[in-house]
């Protein structure tokens, strides 16, 4: 008695125990669910130690940058846009409100969290630097109070437009709209701030429209709505599936069982995840929705077959035993392949995806266990009488169902038109391959919201008016040699000499006194490690001289101290005019390319202050010629209300600068274009001094995890494709059958991704994750079909009659599954979140395509290759004795290992190819030896003899 028989019998005999066990198991795990800890931060797609995240956080620290909520106010009715007294009064009020959006941190009662008041970028919290009277420079609040009349309102507009730091940022280029930038202590407060702002805005009346967006809001709100969706969509899908099954099988009491299997597997998997202390991330919140279709598929097969085979005479126990006998193996393999597909995600370098993959895989195996034990047990609870009028036989007598008729015709069609069917499929495949070549890899978390979602609308509207709501930071660091070279010493001595000559003209200074300092240079450079240390030592030496020198020399020594100090300041490259001009050129280049909506840097600050210091005219909007002049301009900037604003753009030591880029699109492909543009610029225009650059900002981080995701998914996919193939080859004891089994799956996947390419849908995070689902589910029907075909064929030894059988019950089970899952998940299309829609469409497409392809392609292939596939079976032979089989499996295994090694170790493809080339002949040799073993020879003779 085989294992399957044992399990089924046990379940049938101890059905009460099985049910109790399942109940206890589920409830025990369910008890953990209330401990749920939610993590909605897409940044966590990357491990905390990921270099880009580390750098991003360092940058935020270094330049005191916060994640920003963007609030745009637009007034289309007023000819001056929002620049009227009423709109500005509301904007002022909203700003005052936003200023105080602060709460006590629950984790740390001494700390306040919320909006960072001092860094607010709004009309009433920024300075206007401009001309006062003639020859006067003026610092004032841009909008200290709401204006009293229209003139004052327009003045505010003109002032803001005159400041390149505000134009396109706080005030739209067309002078019609205003943006408020609200920095947060932590981005996970975005949704809270968003809700509070909405409440406040609801109290306003008037023509103004308010838009709130920005990646932090989008990401945080997405996480929030995602969990709502989890609670809405999953049950809704379940309900639909339930209704569909009821239509097919007509017995409420029976239809409940797959629902229970789904519930048990979803609840225990989530309970296990939470119980093991993992956070429920955006990815893992999708576990229920992925698990549900997979969990019910097997039960539908059972129910379908049970429905078809059941007769009153046979009774439930005998029927279920018969059903389990024919379905046990296909169900085991479909579950294993689905689980393998998801488990392969554990090989991607993205922690939440790994977690997701592993737990879906666990859930699938739980569902399988539950299906093979609980479903038979469940039938034992049913009274024979409650199954009255159940089953195809009962229905049959009334009328042939449309499904049965359709499938019968379809069966004949595949038999008669095998070649044309395969030709058409090949053509479709070719088109799909072309489609795949056009797939565009792109993502943007804001686009995870449906087009009519307020955040999406805000995104569209604001990016039309402003420089962009997507923030990226291009960080430039001094990469100069810090240590002292001979060249440097020579240059320093030369400069000092020149200074001496200058001083001699100014003061009656004996030259040997000055030479003393110059002569100190080589001596001091011995002990000094860096240029700065050397200059500090020189300055100290000169300072010392002030106290001891003769009176007439004192002035000169003061100058020399100053010389050393100035040299030291000169080491700070982001005060150098040529470096600042370089930054400006880079900004202009990006601006002109149209990729960047707006950029701000310390160079802009210097130019603006310089302009207003000189005469306020556009021609003075330049970087002055000396570092000292730059420093003096910057000190003037610091004489404003917000002196610390400077430190968002440059560090206090002037060794790093930050170019704040605003993009109107958060699409990863657009971000990548910006990255490329900078790379090309820096290559063709080397900076005046060695500078290295790096990127930070959420918009950039998204591109990094996208890259990892796409590459990781692709490799995980290839890996699981190979695993599934190996499993199929083993299942059917033949690589040829394994290949045939992979055909519907391959066509399905190629066509689905081909369509994505053809219709221009971006290959984004949800689509990437769904490839795992596709793989796992698309192979299911092929397994069922081929397994059944293999057992059906020997009975008649003719495909023609076997095909007729196949288009009976097995095809009906497949079709019912297709319909239940495909339609069951259509309610997801109503979700306001795009990934949910994507899942809905995908499930529908996977089921429909793989179902249709299985039912069309497989019978056609079986017919055309009947002889080759159904040749006298070598049943007794074990896989290890079949040399060719062994070899193919070995090659697949080598490839599998290569793919996985590539993902983790830093080994290039060429090296891996080399290893593989060596590994495969070795494996071939082993295969050859194994197949020539005595045991195999005996088996062979056994086969030949009878």
């Amino acid at each position: 008695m085989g294992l399957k028989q044992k399990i089924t019998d046990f379940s049938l005999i101890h059905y009460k125990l099985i049910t109790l066990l399942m109940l206890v198991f589920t409830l025990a795990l369910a008890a953990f669910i209330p401990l749920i800890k939610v993590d909605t931060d897409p940044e966590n797609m990357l491990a905390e130690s990921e270099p880009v995240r580390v750098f991003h956080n360092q940058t935020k620290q270094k330049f005191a940058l916060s994640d920003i909520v963007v609030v745009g106010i637009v007034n289309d009715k007023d000819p001056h846009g929002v620049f009227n007294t009423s709109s500005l009064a509301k904007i002022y009020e909203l700003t005052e409100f936003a200023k105080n959006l602060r709460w006590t941190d629950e984790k740390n009662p001494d700390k306040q969290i919320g909006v960072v008041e001092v860094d607010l970028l709004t009309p009433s919290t920024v300075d206007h630097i401009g001309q006062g009277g003639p020859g006067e420079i003026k610092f004032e609040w841009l909008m200290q109070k709401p204006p009293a009349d229209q003139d004052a309102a327009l003045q505010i507009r003109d002032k803001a437009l005159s400041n390149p730091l505000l134009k396109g940022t706080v005030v739209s280029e067309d002078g019609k709209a205003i943006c408020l930038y609200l920095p947060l202590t932590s981005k996970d407060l975005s949704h809270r701030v968003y809700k509070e702002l909405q409440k406040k805005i609801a109290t306003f009346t008037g023509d103004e429209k308010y838009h709130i967006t920005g990646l932090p809001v989008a990401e945080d709100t997405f996480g929030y709505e995602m969990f709502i969706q989890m609670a809405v969509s999953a049950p809704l899908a379940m309900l639909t599936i339930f209704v569909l099954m009821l239509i097919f099988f007509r017995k409420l009491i029976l239809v409940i069982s797959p629902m229970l299997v789904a519930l048990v597997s979803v609840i225990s998997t989530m309970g296990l995840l939470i119980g093991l202390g993992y956070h429920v991330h955006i990815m893992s919140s999708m576990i229920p929705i992925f698990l549900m279709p997979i969990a019910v598929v097997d039960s539908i097969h059972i129910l379908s077959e049970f429905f078809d085979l059941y007769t009153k005479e046979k009774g439930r126990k005998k029927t279920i035993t018969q059903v389990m006998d024919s379905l046990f193996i296909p169900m085991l393999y479909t579950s294993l392949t689905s689980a393998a597909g998801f488990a392969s995600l554990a090989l991607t370098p993205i922690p939440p995806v790994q977690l997701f993959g592993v737990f879906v895989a666990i859930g699938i195996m739980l569902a399988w266990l539950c299906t093979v034990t609980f479903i038979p047990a469940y039938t034992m609870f049913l009274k024979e009488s409650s199954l009255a009028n159940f089953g195809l036989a009962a229905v049959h007598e009334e009328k042939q169902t449309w499904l049965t008729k359709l499938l019968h015709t379809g069966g004949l069609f595949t038999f008669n038109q095998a070649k044309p069917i395969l030709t058409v499929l090949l053509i479709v495949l070719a088109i799909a391959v072309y489609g795949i070549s056009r797939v565009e890899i792109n993502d943007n978390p804001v686009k995870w919201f449906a087009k009519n979602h307020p955040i999406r609308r805000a995104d569209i509207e604001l990016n039309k008016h402003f420089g962009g709501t997507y923030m990226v930071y291009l960080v430039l660091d001094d990469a100069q040699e810090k240590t002292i070279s001979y060249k440097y010493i020579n240059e320093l001595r030369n400069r000092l000499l020149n200074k001496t000559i200058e001083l001699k003209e100014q003061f009656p200074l004996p030259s040997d006194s000055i030479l003393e300092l110059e002569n100190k240079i080589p001596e001091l450079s011995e002990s000094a490690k860096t240029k700065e240390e050397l200059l500090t030592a020189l300055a100290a030496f000169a300072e010392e001289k002030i106290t001891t020198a003769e009176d007439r020399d004192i002035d000169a020594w003061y100058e020399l101290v100053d010389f050393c100090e100035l040299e030291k300041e000169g080491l700070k490259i982001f005060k150098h005019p040529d470096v600042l001009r370089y930054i400006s050129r880079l900004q202009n280049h990006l601006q002109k390319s149209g990729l960047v909506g707006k950029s701000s840097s310390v160079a802009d600050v210097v130019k603006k202050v310089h302009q207003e210091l000189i005469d306020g005219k556009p021609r003075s909007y330049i970087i002055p010629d000396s570092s000292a002049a730059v420093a003096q301009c910057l000190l003037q900037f610091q004489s404003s209300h917000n002196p610390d604003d400077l430190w968002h753009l440059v560090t206090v030591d002037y060794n790093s600068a930050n170019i704040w880029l605003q993009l109107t699109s958060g699409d990863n492909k657009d971000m990548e274009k910006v990255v490329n543009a900078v790379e090309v610029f820096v290559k063709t225009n080397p900076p005046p001094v060695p500078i290295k650059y790096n990127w930070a900002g959420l918009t950039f981080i998204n591109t990094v995890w996208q890259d990892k995701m796409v590459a990781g998914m692709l490799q995980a996919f290839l890996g699981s494709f190979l695993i599934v193939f190996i499993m199929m080859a083993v299942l059917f004891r033949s690589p040829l059958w394994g290949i045939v089994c992979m055909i519907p799956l391959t066509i399905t996947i190629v066509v689905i991704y081909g369509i994505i390419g053809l219709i221009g849908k971006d290959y984004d995070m949800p689509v990437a994750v769904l490839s795992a689902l596709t793989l796992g589910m698309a192979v299911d029907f092929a397994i069922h079909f081929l397994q059944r075909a293999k057992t059906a064929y020997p009975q008649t030894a003719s495909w023609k009659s076997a095909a007729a059988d196949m288009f009976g019950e097995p095809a009906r089970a497949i079709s019912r599954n297709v319909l239940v899952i495909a339609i069951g998940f259509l309610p997801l299309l109503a979700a306001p979140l795009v990934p949910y829609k994507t899942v809905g469409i995908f499930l529908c497409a996977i089921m429909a395509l793989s179902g249709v392809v299985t039912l069309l392609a497989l019978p056609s292939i079986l017919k055309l290759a009947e002889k080759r596939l159904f040749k006298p079976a070598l049943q007794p032979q074990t896989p290890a004795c079949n040399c060719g089989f062994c070899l193919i499996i070995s090659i697949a295994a080598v490839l599998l290992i290569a793919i996985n090694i590539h993902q983790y170790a830093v080994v290039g493809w060429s090296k891996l190819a080399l290893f593989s080339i060596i590994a495969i002949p070795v494996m071939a040799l082993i295969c050859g030896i194994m197949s020539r073993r005595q045991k195999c020879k005996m088996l062979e003779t056994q086969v030949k003899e009878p």
Partner: protein
Amino acid sequence: MKPIHIFIALIALSVFLFAADSGNKETEKIPNVDEIVNKANLVAYYQANDGKAKVSMTITDKKGQTREREFIILRKDLADGGDQHYYVYFLKPADVRKMVYLVHKHTAQDKDDDRWLYLPALDLVKRIAAGDKRTSFVGSDFLYEDVSGRSLEEDSHELIETTENFFIVKNVPKDPDNVEFTYYNVFIDRNNFIPMKMQYYDNQGSLYRTIEAQGVELIQKFPTVVKALVTDLKTGSKTEMQFSDVKYDIGLDDEIFTERYLRRPPREAIR
């Protein structure tokens, strides 16, 4: 903020403090609030007829990074409690050396201060427009108004408490729209009338800024603040000012406080 300015100015410039009359506390009659603020104003900003001090300023941000400023400040009074002139000459950072601020402070209600700026690297003399004086003083946590003083007329004053050591005066701006504070309290030393502490409150009624005198010395008989600290509770930034080389009644020439001397700093300013 405005009244505070006066006091801040006191602190910053208290280099010029006057000698306080130190009457017996027990028998001393508590003066009325106007008398107190007047005296405090004089102590803080009008000690002697003129004065000079070298100021080292250390700005420490919330990350603990520091920036240094060093300047020499010259002051000459035209009338006690009335107009006065300031000349601020920068020594550090080296690349702003020789930069000068010149202020003609006018206490008359309708007359704004005159302010000039000299930037040596651009060889540029520029007037700073009248108006808001509650902007940062060279990037520090001190405000312009803290340095040159806030007119007593701009606030209404109320003696809210008299402790053993201090008169605590609450100052409410008469024109709240032009300042960022709602009111501020000043702790005035009962002995010498030096404002020892100022606390600024915002429109939420929470304390967001303090100025403290952390060291007082008697210099040429004038009690003088030699160390002051501003703390901005919102930004987490602090600025410490240390006064050295404090001298009173040095006989500064009126000429020094004119535009001509911006480009050619007087000897007193350089060392």
